[in-house]
């Protein structure tokens, strides 16, 4: 399966709940797919406007294909996230958590130490010790030849979701 | 009190505590909504001609009518409230977002 097919499959799987933009440029990097999911929960008492509390949750999926992956590519990605997290995530006073899924697919095989660095990848940022919410990043790498996915610890539960068999 | 009633009472008791400490009501209602949407599409495929959409195979789905008859008028109301017959439901549009 090549990256175009993967892109279409990814788009159709996300389109139900995500607002999707193709070929979006964010902080100097080009992503072939940008998906945003947003929900607001509130508990009210007696009247709908008497809200006891409310909070918002954001989810972003940033996908691009890259065939020559190596360790510095992953490190460079970490730098990119560090600098650009604030203009990726849209926040307001009620926003609780924002989860960014960095999805990379590669049509070539991936060497072991890249996979190790993906597994070790960690990024967590809280605003005012979590009072104003926080951001978690899941890094998921999909090998299109063997249909295998590697992810950091946070992405473990989700990586199956991004494997599309023929 | 045959054990059928006992089993049913115990199950209700478990459900009571499940309801009291239920923390995944939101995810449960999302799953239920998805399931109801799929069911609405299913009924559309079987009994579309109730809404005036000619379904060539409606003869064969008459057999399912007794099992689906209960929420037919609920289904009709939901179908009418859809933006277009196969598209998202009106409720899915978070207008005040």
């Amino acid at each position, binding site marked *: 399966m090549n990256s175009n097919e993967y892109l279409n499959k990814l788009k159709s799987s996300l389109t139900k709940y995500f607002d999707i933009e193709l070929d979006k440029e964010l902080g100097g990097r080009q992503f072939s797919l940008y998906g945003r999911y947003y929900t607001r929960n509130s508990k*009210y*008492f*007696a*009247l*709908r*406007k*008497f*809200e*006891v*509390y*409310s*909070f918002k949750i954001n989810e972003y999926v940033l996908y691009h294909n890259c065939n020559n992956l190596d360790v510095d590519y992953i490190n460079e990605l970490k730098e990119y996230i560090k600098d650009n997290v604030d203009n990726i995530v849209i926040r307001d006073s009620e926003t*609780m*958590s924002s989860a960014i899924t960095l999805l990379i697919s590669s049509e070539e095989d991936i060497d072991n130490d890249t996979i190790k660095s993906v597994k070790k990848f960690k990024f*967590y940022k*809280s605003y005012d010790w*979590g*009072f*104003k*919410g*926080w951001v*978690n990043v899941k890094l998921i790498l999909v090998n299109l030849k063997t249909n295998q996915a590697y992810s950091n*610890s*946070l992405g473990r539960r989700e990586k199956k979701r991004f494997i599309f068999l023929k | 009190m045959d054990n059928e009633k006992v089993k049913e009472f115990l*199950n*209700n*008791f478990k*459900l*009571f*505590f*499940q*309801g*009291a*400490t*239920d*923390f995944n*009501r939101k995810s449960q*209602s*999302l799953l*239920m*909504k998805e399931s*109801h949407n799929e069911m609405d599409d299913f009924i559309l495929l079987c009994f579309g001609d109730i809404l005036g959409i000619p379904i060539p195979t409606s003869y064969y789905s008459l057999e399912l009518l007794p099992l689906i008859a209960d*929420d037919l008028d*609920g289904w009709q*109301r*939901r179908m009418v409230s859809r933006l277009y017959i196969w598209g998202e*439901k009106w*409720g899915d549009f978070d207008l005040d977002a």
Partner: protein
Amino acid sequence: MNSLILVLSVIIIFIIAYATYGSYLCKTWGLDPKKQTPAHTMEDGVDYCPAKAPVLLGHHFASIAGAGPIVGPIQAAVFGWLPVMLWIVIGSIFVGGVHDMGALFASVRHDGKSLGEVIHSTMGDTGRKLFSWFAWLTLILVIAAFTAICAGLFVSTPAAGSTSILFIILAIAFGFFVYRKGAGLGVSTVVGVVLLFACIWLGMRFQFTAGFTKSTWVIILVAYITVASVAPVWILLQPRDYLNSFLLYAMIIGAVLGLVILHPTIEAKSFVAFNTGNMNYLFPMLFVTVACGAISGFHALVGSGTTSKQIDNEKDVKLIGYGSMLIEGVLATIAIITATYIATPELGELLSDGGPMNVFATGIGNFMQSFGIPFETGKVFTSLAISAFALTSLDTATRLGRFIFQELFDNRQSADEKANVLTNKYVSTVITAGLGGLLAVMGYAKVWPIFGSANQLLAALALLTLAAYLKKSGKSNKVAVIPTIFMFVVTFAALVLLIIQKSADFATNWILVIIAAILLVLAVVLARFGYKTLTETTEEKIKG
């Protein structure tokens, strides 16, 4: 009389009442299982989605059960346990049950709109302002009552105080790891519960809050609720509620088990006096002190808010409305037993020392001792559970009070007008919590009856709405009219009595007198207003 026999007989009476009177209500009100409930007709998968009856009963019970059914009956035990028991049984069956089931039924028949919305929409603008003032005052009283109760408890058993503080810290840490670090819920729940018992043990070992007096505790509690109700919900409120539920249900199971094993005989006197001094007459005060055990307006607002949108079939209205009230009646009975198996003089002394919570905690501590849990641990565990319960209600009440306060003073026509300072989130919270704290310092015994009467007034209003609705739809509403009149009479009598009683030494509790007076005025106005709008719509409906 052995307590176990008392509880069992109460349960049997309730089952009979459920089958007979409950079904009678269903028939007269015309509850029709074939009719489509709002959960089906307006299903949108967010608010309106049908839920199984037992799950909904559990959810409804969890949202209405508070510290009320525990504090009220114990406080009223001062009149002797027999009148309280009679009121709990009769109240639950004929007044409270009708009220809860009626509120749910009326709401189901109004497309799941909550009673608040029904009252809100039927009253004009002034009515709405009055209703908001009334709600805000009631919430202030709730804050005052529960702060005072907790403060009394923490002073009487310092271990409970220190444990609660440790529990708050545990909740925040739990929230941090599960929410932000993505630790598995299953694993962290186990760790959380283990740490919970570690807190109890630590709290008992180093009672670092031993020296605190009652007023210092009130200040700490007011500060706590101010911060807690302003901080985002995922910091403290949600993780704490999650851990609370384990505490609460462990306590209920422990109490029931202990009661069955120990089945103590009732020592306290069955009847003390019609007037236990200082004009504390049995007639109005008993019915106002025992709020949640027999009837409480608070249920109508909760029940008709979210539960009615999820009723799957009209026959569930009886189970959830009537059933949950009866379960609370049983809970109140257990509470009264924890107080009355001690002889009356000791009861009075315990009551003055730490208030009803202390009595309840001691009682449950003894119950748990019967199956091997050391008394001290049992007592601290129960008081931690009760205070956690009270803190949750405090939190909700403060958030709501702040919101209503903001809305009351938010008379800006357009958005860009400068919001006056009162509508600022922090200012309104401080005012609401501060006023509550001031009242709490007055002492819990003075505040609770006023809160009770405000609550019963709300109940009377709900019953009035139900009576009007039944008349409008051509059904006999004497099942609702009699309780309505009874509740209005009780509330007026109680308020008048309280005003006279409190104005004896006007200097110290002038605030209470003023609040009672405002409530009285509001009661009269709301009753007349409610009656007029509801009967008016009735004629116009029939004419129109």
